[in-house]
């Protein structure tokens, strides 16, 4: 097993197929990144909502 390209420039160009291959790689990575970030952001938002509910409840109890 050896590196198939003479240098990093060749790896980017890939004999003219570079734009196709690298677009596929970048779009795939972007979509996969979104699949991780989205649920993490949703979880955070859900926890924030619960915290706000608890705070509201404690405040209203305190006033009463």
């Amino acid at each position, binding site marked *: 097993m050896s590196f198939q390209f003479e240098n990093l420039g060749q790896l980017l160009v890939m004999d003219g197929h570079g734009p196709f291959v690298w677009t596929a790689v970048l779009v795939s990575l972007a979509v996969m990144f*979104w699949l991780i970030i989205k649920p993490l952001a949703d979880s955070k938002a859900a926890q924030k909502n619960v915290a706000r509910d608890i705070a509201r409840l404690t405040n209203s109890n305190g006033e009463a």
Partner: protein
Amino acid sequence: MNWLTNWSPSWQWFHRLGSPRWFYQTTGRWLPWLSLLALALLSTGLVWGLGFAPQDAKQGNSFRIIYLHVPASFLALAGYYIMAIAGAIGLIWKMKLSYMVMKSAAPIGAALTFLALFTGAIWGKPTWGTYWVWDARVTSMLILLFLYLGVLALQYAFHSNEAGNRASAILALVGTVNIPIIYKSVDWWYTLHQPATIKLTSAPSMHPDMFQPLLVMILGFYCFYTVALFLFTRAEILRRERNSTWVKELVMGGQH
């Protein structure tokens, strides 16, 4: 009902699995390791496939798209089974966690099906001379994307969660008829799409030097899928169980 409690090991397991709290805590312990494994496999497979695997005799370097296209397609299909089975369990045993898994599988499956179609289109241009053909494999994958989007849309089409869940589950189950069509499309119809590279029943039609990184990528995608499904389901659990004591305790505990 004594027999039910006596015959407990398997049922206890089943009921524990049905508990959102148990799922949340257990997956929380697994997630760091699974994420690490997914990251290691995906980065190894990608560097290996893009830089070190030999180029294809006919297709040249464009064939390297296979290292994303095939794993994404694999999981787009496997993810549909997971969604449909979760929907069936929800319908039969009224298990709410199961519905949450079904709902979570929909956006992930849609994203992976999109990736399969997108990487396929990009691969098609230098290989077939066109980004898109209305051939059997490509069209049946497009239908898969619409099925995923349909399940997702039905979740939001009803006022009650229960009605949305049941409608989604039924659509997911009906849609499974499309899966064998996708698998067999390259055999049943004349198509531009090449036949399956990997079959369980025979040796891969690829040189081992090309096949090994593909295998690493497929394993990496399986781990990645599991991580994503856990994360989406955990977010859904927090949303739906927001009034339960354990979620409140969890949030309070996290604030200290």
